[in-house]
C-alpha cells in the first residue's frame, strides 16, 4: 500500500485539554509552588504565576498566530535564516526532548516509589518508552483524542479526592498572609511560571489546528484553569499538612489522596491518583516526543520522518536513565535557580524575541 501524506487535524479544544493535562501532571507530582521556605503563601505564588502565565501565553500564541501555517521550527528558519535559526531550533528541540526526558524519569520514579519499590527504575523507563514510541507512531490525532478521554476521568478523580479531604483543612495554618513579605512569593512563582511556559508547544502544533481562531481563547482559559487547580492543591496541601510538613513530602498530592478514608471502605485512593498521574504523564511524554520527531524532520527537511521515532525514543531512554541519580535530584533540578532560569529563557525569552522579530518583519513588508 502506498503511504500517502496526511495532515493531522486537531481542534483547539483538544489542544486546550492537552495543555491542562500536561500541567496538572506536573502539579500532582511535585506541586512546584511548595519549593521555598514560605509554603504558607504558596497559593499567592500560584496566582501570581497564573497572571504572568497569561502574558506568556499571549506572547506564544500571538507568535503562532502571526505564522499560522508554520511550526515553531519553520518560523525559526524563515525568520533567522539557516544558521542562527538552526541554533534556535536546536535549543527548542533539545528543550522538547529534555521535557520528555524529565517526564519519563518522573513517571518511572513514581511507579517505582509508589507502587513497585522492588522493580528497578530502568525497567520502567524501558517499558514507558516502548509504549510512548508505539503511541507516537499512531500519530498526533490519536494521542490528543486519547487525552480527551483520560483527562476527563483524571480531573473528576482529582476533584473527587479534594472533596473527600476538604473537611481536614485548617485555614489557620494558612495565616498570616505575607508573613515574610513578597520576595518568597515571587520566588515561589518562578517554577510554576516556567511550567506555564510549556505551551511553547502551541506554535509547534498550531498549523494542524482546524479552528485556529479559538486557540488564543482556549489557551488563556487553560492557563486560568491550571492556576485554579494549582491554587486549590496548594491550599489543600498546606492547609492539611501545615507549612513545615508540606515541605518535606516527596509527593504532596499523593499524600493528600492517602488521607481519604470514607467509612473504612474507600481507602488507598493514592493508587487512583497514581493512575491519574500516569495517564497524564504518558500523554505528555508522547506529545513532547512527537513534537521532537516532527521538529527534527522539518528542520532537516526530510521527506519522511517516521523512522526518527525509534532513534529519538532510544535517545530519550538513555538520557532519562543517565541524567538523574534519584528522585531528589529531579526535585533539586526543578528549583527556581536552575529550572526556572533555564526554562524561562527558552520558553519565554526566545519566543518574545521571535515575536518582536516577526512584528518588525511584518511592518517592513507592509511598508
Amino acid at each position, binding site marked *: 500500500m502506498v503511504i500517502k*501524506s496526511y495532515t493531522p487535524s486537531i*481542534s483547539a479544544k483538544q489542544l486546550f485539554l492537552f495543555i491542562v493535562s500536561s500541567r496538572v501532571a506536573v502539579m500532582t507530582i511535585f506541586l512546584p509552588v511548595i519549593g521555598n521556605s514560605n509554603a504558607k503563601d504558596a497559593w499567592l505564588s500560584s496566582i501570581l504565576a497564573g497572571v504572568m502565565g497569561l502574558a506568556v501565553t499571549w506572547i506564544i500564541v500571538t507568535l503562532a498566530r502571526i505564522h499560522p501555517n508554520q511550526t515553531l521550527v519553520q518560523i525559526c528558519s524563515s525568520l533567522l535564516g539557516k544558521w542562527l535559526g538552526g541554533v534556535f531550533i536546536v535549543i527548542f528541540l533539545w528543550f522538547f526532548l529534555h521535557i520528555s526526558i524529565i517526564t519519563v524519569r518522573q513517571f518511572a520514579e513514581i511507579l517505582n516509589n509508589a*507502587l513497585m519499590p522492588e522493580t528497578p527504575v530502568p525497567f520502567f523507563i524501558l*517499558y514507558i518508552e516502548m509504549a510512548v514510541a508505539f*503511541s507516537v507512531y499512531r500519530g498526533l490525532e490519536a494521542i490528543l483524542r486519547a487525552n480527551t478521554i483520560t483527562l476527563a476521568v483524571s480531573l473528576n478523580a482529582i476533584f473527587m479526592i479534594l472533596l473527600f479531604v476538604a473537611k481536614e483543612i485548617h485555614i489557620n495554618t494558612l495565616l498570616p498572609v505575607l508573613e515574610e513579605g513578597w520576595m518568597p512569593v515571587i520566588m515561589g512563582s518562578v517554577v510554576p511560571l516556567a511550567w506555564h511556559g510549556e505551551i511553547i508547544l502551541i506554535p509547534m502544533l498550531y498549523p494542524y489546528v482546524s479552528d485556529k481562531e479559538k486557540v488564543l481563547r482556549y489557551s488563556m482559559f487553560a492557563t486560568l484553569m491550571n492556576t485554579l487547580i494549582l491554587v486549590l492543591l496548594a491550599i489543600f496541601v498546606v492547609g492539611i499538612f501545615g507549612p513545615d510538613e508540606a515541605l518535606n513530602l516527596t509527593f504532596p498530592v499523593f499524600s493528600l489522596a492517602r488521607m481519604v478514608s470514607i467509612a473504612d471502605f474507600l481507602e488507598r485512593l493514592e493508587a487512583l491518583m497514581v493512575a491519574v498521574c*500516569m495517564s497524564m504523564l504518558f*500523554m505528555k511524554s508522547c506529545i513532547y516526543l512527537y513534537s521532537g520527531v516532527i521538529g527534527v524532520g522539518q528542520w532537516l527537511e526530510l*521527506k*519522511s520522518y517516521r523512522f526518527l*521515532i525509534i532513534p529519538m525514543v532510544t535517545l530519550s531512554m538513555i538520557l532519562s536513565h543517565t541524567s538523574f541519580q534519584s528522585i531528589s535530584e529531579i526535585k533539586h533540578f526543578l528549583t527556581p535557580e536552575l529550572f526556572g532560569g533555564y526554562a524561562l529563557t527558552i520558553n519565554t525569552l526566545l519566543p518574545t524575541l521571535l515575536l518582536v522579530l516577526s512584528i518588525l518583519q511584518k511592518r517592513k513588508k507592509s511598508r
Partner: protein
Amino acid sequence: MNSRILRNRKVRLGKNKAESQVALPASIDELISFIKAQFGESNDIVYRDLILGVSTIRAVVVYIGTLAKTDIINTQIMESVFRMDHVDNPAAEEDLMDFYALRLLPVGNISKIGSEQELIEVLLGGDTIFFMDGYSTAIAISTEGSKQRAILEPEVEHEVRGPRESFVENIYTNMAMIRRIINNQNLRFLSFKLGDMTNTEVTVTYLYGHADPEIVAEIKKRLDRIQLDGMLESLYVEEWIEDHPNSVFAQIDHTERPDRVAAMLLEGRVAIMVNGSPWVLIVPTLFVQFFTSSGDYYTHYYFATFIRWIRFVAFVFAMIVPAFYIALITMHQEMIPTPLALRIAGDRSGVPFPAIVEALIMELAFEILREAGIRLPKVAGQAVSIVGALVIGEAAVQAGIVSPVMVIVVAVTGISSFAIPQFSLGMTTRILRFPLMILASIAGIPGITIALLVILTYMASLKSFGVPYLSPVAPFVRKDVHDTFFRAPWKKLSKGKHLFGRENKVEQGSEFETEE
C-alpha cells in the same frame, strides 16, 4: 415498445462485462449443444422440446430445475404456449418472438437476450429460456425461486421487545424486509457481483440524502478492489474493506436484525448485504455502536442507559479482571484489604503455581469449554459450557490446582464477555486479555495501566471510513453524544442525522510524510 415491457436487466459489474459478446446460434440443436458443452453432465438442467401450435416451428424451454420454480413453468409458460392454437395466429409481418413476449407469456418479468454470456447468466439466476428455431434471440422468463429457509426469530440478537424477524440467506428476501420497514423511494440498493467463481450478489444499501455520498463512493471503490474466487459470508467483504485489516478491534458492525439495519440507515449509515449470508454489515462503525442493541431503543431510556453502563462495565471487566487480580496477588498485596488478603493467602497456600500460571490454566480451560459449547448440540451447548466451567472449577479447587478466588475471577470474566451485545467485540476482549495478564505478572498495575493507555491511543487512531473510531466521544461531538453513554429519550434522539464526528477526508495516510 418492447423496451417498455421488457425489463432492463440489472446492471452487473464484474469481469464478464468486459468480454466480447457472442451472439446466440439460430438453430435449436446448436443452442442445446452449446448449453450442454457449458454445463457438462449436470443433470439438473431441463430441456423441453415443443412444437408450436399448428405451425411446425420447433421451440425449446430450458431451465435449471433446482433453481427455477417448476409450478410457474408448468402452469404459466407451458399452458400458454400450448394454448397457442386457440389464439389468432400472428400477422405474417409480426415477429413471432415479439408476439410471444407481448401477448402470450403471462409472467411479469421477461426480457430478450441475444448473447451466450447473457444466456448462461440468466440460466444461473434461475430464469427460464424460451427459444425458437430460426431466431437468434431468446426470451428469458423470470422464474427464479428456489427453496429457502423461512424467516425465523433472531437467534443471536434476541430482544425482549421489538420485531421478531431476522435476515435469511436469500438477499432478495432481506432487501424486501428492509423495504417493508423503510417505505421511501430514497432507499437505494446498489448491486455488485463479487467472487469470480461464485458470482455472489452483494448489495450496498443506503438512504439517499441521509448517507454521506463520499462514504458510499468509497465503499464502491473498496468493493471494486475485491478479488476472490468465492464469497460465502459477509465477513469476506468485511476483511477486504475495513480500514485496518490487521487490527484486533472489530471495525465493522454486523447484524441479523432488519430493524437494526433500518435504524442504522436512518442514521445515515450504509449497509452491505451479501447473498448467502444472514449477517448484514453496517459502515461506518463506531466503537460505542458495539455496546448498543436494538432493544435499547425499544425500552425506556433510563433503563436503556443503565443497561448500556452495565455493558461498559462488562467490557472493562472482561478485559482487565484477571490481569488486575494477578497484579494484586503477585505485586500489590498491600492494596487488598487485610482480612481479604489473609483469606486469599490462606486459600492460595496449597496452590503449587504462581498466579499467572493458575490464571492461564483456568482461562484456557474456559476458552476450550466455550468453544466446545458452540460445537455441541444446541440443547446441551450452553448448559455444558457454563456448568462445565463451574464443575471443573470446583473439582480443580478441591484438587488444589487453583484457588477458589481464581475460579470467581475467571467466571466473572467469562460472563462479562457474554454481556457485550456485539459478539465481535467480545472476541477482541478475549484476545487482549492474555497479553494483559502476562504484562500484569511482569510489571504489576503499572504494566496494565500503561498497556491500557496504549490500547486507548491505538483505538483513538483507528478510523472507519474516515470516521474516528472513538467519536463522538473523542473527538467530542456534542450533537451526537446523545446516544453514547446514555440513550437520550426519543423526543431528542430523532432530531437530526448523525454527523459521525467526521473531520477528515476518507483517505488514509501517514502523518510522518511530508506533502509532495
